[in-house]
């Protein structure tokens, strides 16, 4: 997808995205836990992937603290509207979403899952192609 973005951006074009993933330097058990709550393993990391795709001016900002607050807010807002949501989406789906949120909240608090804002730029003159 990063190569596809690079292709459609004009020289000098900007790319900024948020991504949730397993933290770096995890044990095998912690990595499995991150993947179990549905998050990807970025392998060599986003800067390396962007660099290989031809991007420059790559910057990564850790926004995990805000992610934790927002996810907790999703959980609490769903609890506050539980009856209406169970009518709308069904009790099983409601319970499934909340269970996953609780597991992810615990994974964030334990440092296993993190969220980042990544920015990069297609160089004004490509050196890679």
């Amino acid at each position, binding site marked *: 997808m990063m190569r596809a973005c690079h292709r459609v951006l004009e020289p000098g074009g900007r790319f900024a995205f948020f*991504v949730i993933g397993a933290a770096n330097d995890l044990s095998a058990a912690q990595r499995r836990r991150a993947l179990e709550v549905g998050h*990807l393993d970025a392998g060599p990391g986003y800067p390396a992937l962007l660099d290989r795709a031809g991007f420059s001016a790559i910057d990564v900002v850790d926004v995990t603290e805000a992610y934790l607050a927002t996810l907790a807010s999703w959980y609490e807002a769903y609890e506050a509207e539980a009856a209406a949501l169970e009518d709308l989406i069904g009790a099983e789906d409601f319970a499934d979403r909340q269970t996953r949120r609780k597991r992810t909240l615990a994974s964030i608090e334990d440092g296993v899952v993190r969220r980042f804002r990544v920015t990069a730029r297609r160089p004004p003159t490509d050196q890679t192609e």
Partner: protein
Amino acid sequence: MTAKVDTEMTIEFNDRTVDFDERYRVIEHDVMQRIEGRVIGSSYGANSYTTKVQADQLAEVLALGPESLLLDIGSGAGWPGVYLARTTGCRVVLTDMTIEGLRVGASRMAREAIAGAAIGASGAALPIRDEALEAATCSDVFC
């Protein structure tokens, strides 16, 4: 499930599948709008964790303005792409695999007279010509 993206990143999920079309069919319901407003500060059927404050930061780092053409990959119903178009005046192209989400986003673009398009496509195979865009974004698509 294991999916290959480009040739260098393997995305591993657990075995669940999520029917996003089903989810987007209810996003305009009152209770969903109340929750989204409380959590994200938006009303676009957002299911990511990008808050309004963070969306405004995207506008800054992407240097969006009326001359910009923005691509929002995995846009769902248009958060944050349509919001960024409304607040900066840029044009926006929404892309996603959920047609129901795109339907909601395209309707909103039409209602708010926002220029752009909504395209059902994978982010890895964008049906867009080379060097067509000034900016691209996505929120929590790789997760």
